[in-house]
């Protein structure tokens, strides 16, 4: 296996991780501030992708599509927060799991109701398509590089938002002590709606960005949702930094595991068996990683000790 291939695979893992971060950041933010488990986060990812595909189909503009994705997911998030979620903050996790499970059903089938059963088309814009040659001779798709850049930019922006702005201060205060921010005179319900909409917008952005290179279809959010959960659990729930580290770990493990495990098994098994066994183990790899992290640190890498 050539060093170029390995470098390329690391880039792929990085790109996958960065996209997972966009999903995981919203989830972990919502959990950190409101203490809410949102199983319907994947549905907001789907909303973003569908909105982008619809707008791109009408206008032909990818940028407009991205804006639409952000707006649609944020609006859907805010609506859901106001109508349903805010009644759940005081409830235990059990009720939250059930209610957001119900939301998944509503979103998935509702989307199919509106857009039909056939996958939608969303493509990379011409000016971002095709490969570029990186130092070392790696031909790498430009769009994936843009995804890495965009994801890291969002991560940095989110970091700034939380450390430097008024709303960031309120968010941090909310994470530490819910009574305190009320005492500070912050309108909590407005803050919660904003945080939820922000998380939703991030998920919608991820859906639109990824939708251009994947299939835009109903239930596309669920596999990603589970991965995002794995990410925030590894990183420590509530920690944005943890989400970033966890996302990159999961992205790299998943990508590199899929490549190297079959190769590893080929050393002592016949190729067909090795490929199948390696592939099975690779699909379990991130869950094994998560199990190992939790056994070692029960509250994740950056989580506050219980």
């Amino acid at each position, binding site marked *: 296996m050539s060093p170029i291939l390995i470098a390329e695979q690391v880039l792929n893992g990085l790109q996958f991780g960065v996209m997972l971060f966009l999903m995981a950041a919203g989830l972990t933010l919502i*959990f950190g501030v409101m203490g809410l*488990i949102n*199983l319907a986060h994947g549905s907001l990812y789907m909303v973003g992708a569908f909105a982008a595909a619809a707008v791109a189909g009408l206008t032909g503009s990818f940028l407009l599509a991205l804006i639409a994705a952000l707006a649609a997911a944020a609006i859907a998030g805010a609506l859901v927060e106001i109508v*349903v979620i805010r*009644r*759940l903050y005081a*409830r235990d*996790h*059990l*009720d939250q*799991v*059930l*209610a957001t*499970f*119900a*939301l*998944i*059903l*509503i979103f*998935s*089938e*509702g989307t*199919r*109701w509106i857009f039909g059963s056939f996958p939608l088309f969303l493509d990379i814009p011409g000016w971002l398509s095709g490969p570029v040659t990186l130092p070392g001779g790696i031909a790498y798709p430009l769009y994936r590089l843009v995804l890495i850049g965009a994801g890291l930019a969002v991560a940095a922006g989110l970091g700034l938002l939380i450390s430097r702005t008024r709303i960031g201060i309120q968010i941090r205060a909310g994470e530490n002590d819910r009574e305190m921010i009320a005492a500070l005179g912050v309108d909590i319900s407005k803050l919660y709606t904003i945080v939820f909409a922000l998380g939703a917008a991030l998920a919608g952005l991820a859906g639109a960005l990824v939708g251009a290179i994947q299939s835009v279809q109903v239930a596309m959010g669920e596999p990603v949702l*589970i991965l995002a*959960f*794995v990410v925030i*659990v590894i990183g420590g*729930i509530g920690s944005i930094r943890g989400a970033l580290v966890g996302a990159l770990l999961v992205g790299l493990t998943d990508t590199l595991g899929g490549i190297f495990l079959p190769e590893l098994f080929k050393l002592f098994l016949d190729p067909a068996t090795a490929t*199948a*066994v390696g*592939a*099975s183990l690779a*699909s*379990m790899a991130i*869950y*094994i990683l*998560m*199990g190992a992290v*939790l*056994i070692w640190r*029960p*509250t*994740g890498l950056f*989580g506050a000790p*219980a």
Partner: protein
Amino acid sequence: MSRETILNALLVAGLVALPLGAHLAGEPFTVTLATRAVILALAAVGLNIALGLGGLVSLGHAAFFGVGGYAMGILASHAQSYVPLMEAPFLIEGTKSMPVIWLVAVVASALAALLIGMLSLRTSGVYFIMITLAFGQMLYYFAIGWAPYGGEDGLPIYVRNGFPGLNTLVPIQFYALCLVVLLLALALHAVIARSPFGLALDAARQVPERVRAVGLNPTRLKLAAFTLSGAITGLSGALFADLNRFVSPTMLSWQMSGEIMVLVILGGTGRLFGPVVGAAVFVALDHHLGGLTEFWQVWLGVILLAVVLFARGGLIGLIAGERRTDA
């Protein structure tokens, strides 16, 4: 008698009378549907012990459901192909006998629950939810790639397994068998809930520090409950596989875990008959909404949402009021 006791008695009467009536009226499919509800209720009774008594929000109970299902699938498939399960160091043959299959299903799923529980109980709260989910996914992906037993295609069993003295192919007989198992599991839950173990477990859910302070180990109590819970759900998995004469990784999927949890919460978490009400209502909704609109799952979602938001304590809570304490 409290309202809940009366309700429970009515439910038992309904579980006996309705399918019997359907049988006499010559509607075997209604009996099959009732069997499905009873088996799902059994799975939820299992989860209810972990969830209701132990406060363990497990989003990975499909793992035990599937282990039970595969115990049945593997034993029965070897029996129907006459290939022994293993020959060395000693011969193990497949079987089509339900009691043997049940025993294996219970032991296998209890072991799985013990192992998963030991690791998962190091965490709590949301982490517990997520780590159980992750273990479920691990088994799911394992089953999908498990070629000798069908992988994603699953494992069909051509003829339903047998139970001494019964013809399990007759819907009402198989139903009666499943109902007896369910009632036994409910009795077990009722006995446990009032036992010293149940008291300590319920206290460990509410105030673990108090339980420690009286010299007990809350984690061990929860682990025991989790293991028992997994065993019961595993048994229901074996029955479910026999109902469908088929096992597949779908039984291990996270949506299945979610559904089992929905059954418990819909009926009323920690309520003895909560799983029964939850399963009956869920199966009925699932079945009848489908005829009304192609997008029936939207309405299923709306109904579930309404229950969470407006009927705290589930449907039993709605009818029978708050849970009463033992005195």
